[in-house]
């Protein structure tokens, strides 16, 4: 009897982790742990480098969200030098950054998430990827997905100098203004992206929401945790990826905190557990009670659903309509259903595309005034953005010559570490009973994990790409078995 259930490797993730599932005598799940491998030497690697070089180096930590690190790093560098960037520079960074978010969310949904639903967790493994998805939604739509992924990447390249190694942001603004020629190239891409994002929401509705078994999965009890949520909001309380204050709400939606990101150390503490290299950020104000739900537990979640949960709405019309649609479906706010992260991601995709469209038409976007040369002595600074996967903090201390003395990052996936562990355990408990495990059941446990769109490459700066991954199931009698897909 399969006592040991191994998910090896955890497929369709950025980087990799290991899931340990511990069964009791009856073959039911007693414990589940998500572990990741540690990468070494990041601080040392950064120390002594010019602050502005960090803006080009940190994006290389992982090939998945270079844009997010580029933005957070540039903002931290602005703060180190005490410089305010010109308005046009902010708009240009926002145009770049919304294209980055659009690219990331699009990719995650079609390559990583959607295949869970279409053709579904019970389909044969060979179909449970983007190929099976294309069979279900049609070749034309597949071509559209590729085309718009390309647009989102092209826009980033036009602004930041390179599509996957952004270089243009630096302390004080941008090194390159946007030419009218480039702007004219971006504008129709923005329009097309908006239409495509609408289509994505329609596809989600047709293929997932309108199917009872998928609706049940999304709205059911297995993928559900009542936690706190945190994310950036603009002065109107709406979702903003580039800038804002951090808003934290409790499981009932009441505001716990609204703070300037520079004060993050007053609000976030980190718990160390001996079985995990990845620490567990939690809310200082609430305290650590372990990997549990509820208002007494300082566990909080970030990423798309969290951002929508803390916000008053979306700042663009089509995204706002989609936002209202989602909260109507669940009938409450905050939404605690983990699979709703996928839905929230598409609503954010809509917003990001509308922002690209809006900013591409803004007359100030081609202004030549995109840099304020720093004149203050360098000191200490914090830069925060919402990466696709959640709030990203870069914190730098500089010496008097502008060389980095210390560098600290809190990445999105780390902040979801506690919740990911809880989600995997809960899904495992519900779906692995009396030692019975099927292929579809294993994929369901992974679904709990993948909803967070985790990028383990950043979380402990773990190696991206696939590596041999073990899921160890530990029997009570000491036996350990490993599965491979």
């Amino acid at each position, binding site marked *: 009897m399969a006592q040991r259930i191994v998910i090896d490797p955890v497929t369709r993730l*950025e980087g990799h982790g290991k899931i340990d599932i511990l069964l009791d005598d009856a073959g039911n799940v007693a414990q589940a742990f998500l572990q990741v491998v540690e*990468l*070494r*030497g990041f601080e*040392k690697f950064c120390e002594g480098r010019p602050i502005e070089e960090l803006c080009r180096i940190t994006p290389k930590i992982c090939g998945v969200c270079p844009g997010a690190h580029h933005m957070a790093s540039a903002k931290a560098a602005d703060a180190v030098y005490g410089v305010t960037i010109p308005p046009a520079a902010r708009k240009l960074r926002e145009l770049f950054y919304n294209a980055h978010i659009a690219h990331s969310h699009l990719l995650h949904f079609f390559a990583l998430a959607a295949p869970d639903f279409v053709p579904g967790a019970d389909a044969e493994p060979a179909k449970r990827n983007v190929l099976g998805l*294309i069979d279900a939604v049609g070749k034309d739509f597949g071509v559209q997905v590729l085309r718009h992924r*390309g647009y989102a990447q092209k826009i980033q390249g036009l602004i930041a100098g390179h599509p996957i190694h952004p270089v243009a942001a630096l302390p004080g603004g941008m090194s390159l203004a946007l030419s009218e020629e480039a702007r004219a190239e971006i504008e129709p891409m923005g329009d097309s992206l908006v239409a495509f994002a609408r289509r994505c929401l329609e596809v989600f509705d047709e293929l997932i929401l309108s199917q009872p078994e998928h609706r049940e999965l999304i709205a059911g009890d297995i993928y559900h945790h009542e936690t706190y949520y945190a994310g950036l909001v603009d002065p109107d309380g709406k979702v903003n990826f580039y800038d804002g204050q951090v808003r934290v709400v409790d499981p009932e939606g009441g505001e716990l905190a609204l703070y300037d990101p520079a004060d993050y150390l007053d609000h976030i503490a980190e718990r160390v557990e001996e079985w995990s290299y990845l620490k567990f950020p939690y809310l200082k104000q609430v305290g650590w009670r372990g990997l549990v739900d509820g208002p007494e537990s300082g566990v909080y979640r970030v990423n798309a659903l969290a951002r929508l949960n803390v916000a008053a709405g979306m700042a663009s019309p089509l995204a706002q309509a989609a936002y209202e649609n989602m909260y109507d479906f669940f009938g409450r706010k905050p939404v605690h259903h983990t699979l709703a992260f996928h839905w929230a991601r598409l609503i954010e995709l809509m917003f990001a595309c509308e922002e690209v469209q809006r900013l591409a038409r803004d007359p100030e976007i081609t202004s030549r005034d995109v840099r304020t040369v720093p004149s203050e002595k360098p000191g200490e600074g914090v830069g925060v953005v919402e990466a696709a996967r959640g709030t990203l903090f870069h914190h730098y201390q500089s010496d008097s010559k502008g060389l980095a003395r210390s560098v600290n990052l809190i990445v999105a996936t780390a902040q979801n570490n506690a919740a990911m562990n809880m989600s995997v355990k809960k899904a495992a408990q519900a779906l692995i009973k009396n030692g019975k495990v099927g292929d579809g059941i294993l994929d369901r446990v992974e679904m709990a994990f993948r909803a967070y769109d985790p990028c383990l490459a950043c979380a402990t700066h773990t*190696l*991206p*790409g696939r590596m041999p991954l073990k899921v160890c199931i530990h029997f009570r009698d000491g036996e350990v078995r490993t599965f491979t897909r």
Partner: protein
Amino acid sequence: MGGQTLIMGLGNPVLTDDGVGIHVVERLRCEGAPEGARLELAGTCGLGLLEIVAGYERLVLVDAIDAGRRPGTVLTLGLEELDTLSPAHAASSHEVDLPTALELGRKLGLPMPGEVRIVAIQIADVSTFSETCTQAVRDAIAEACEVVRRICGV
């Protein structure tokens, strides 16, 4: 776009041996690309690959691998071997791996390369931040370049 051969280096250039594919292709660029071949650099495989490789007859990927060999060993793999041996990025689970990406391209009617070879170098360390490879892997870069040239028929 398109032509005879595309040589693409994959990897993370700040994670020690993980970036060896990048170093190999950069060396080829310094020495001069094989005739009829174009050089490219990328991070990992994925959907973004499709528009880059479309139209080429032959694709040569250069990547890091952990196949349990002596560090610096240079392996040459075909697509069919990726089930058992997993180069760090060609078999990446970031979004879609190489075989899936190529099959998707074909499904969508894009002209995918008919011949695919992967030159993979055995790593020693991919978990420390550094812009240079370990000695054994550094020493293998020249050999990997030779292997690539041979595949290109030079």
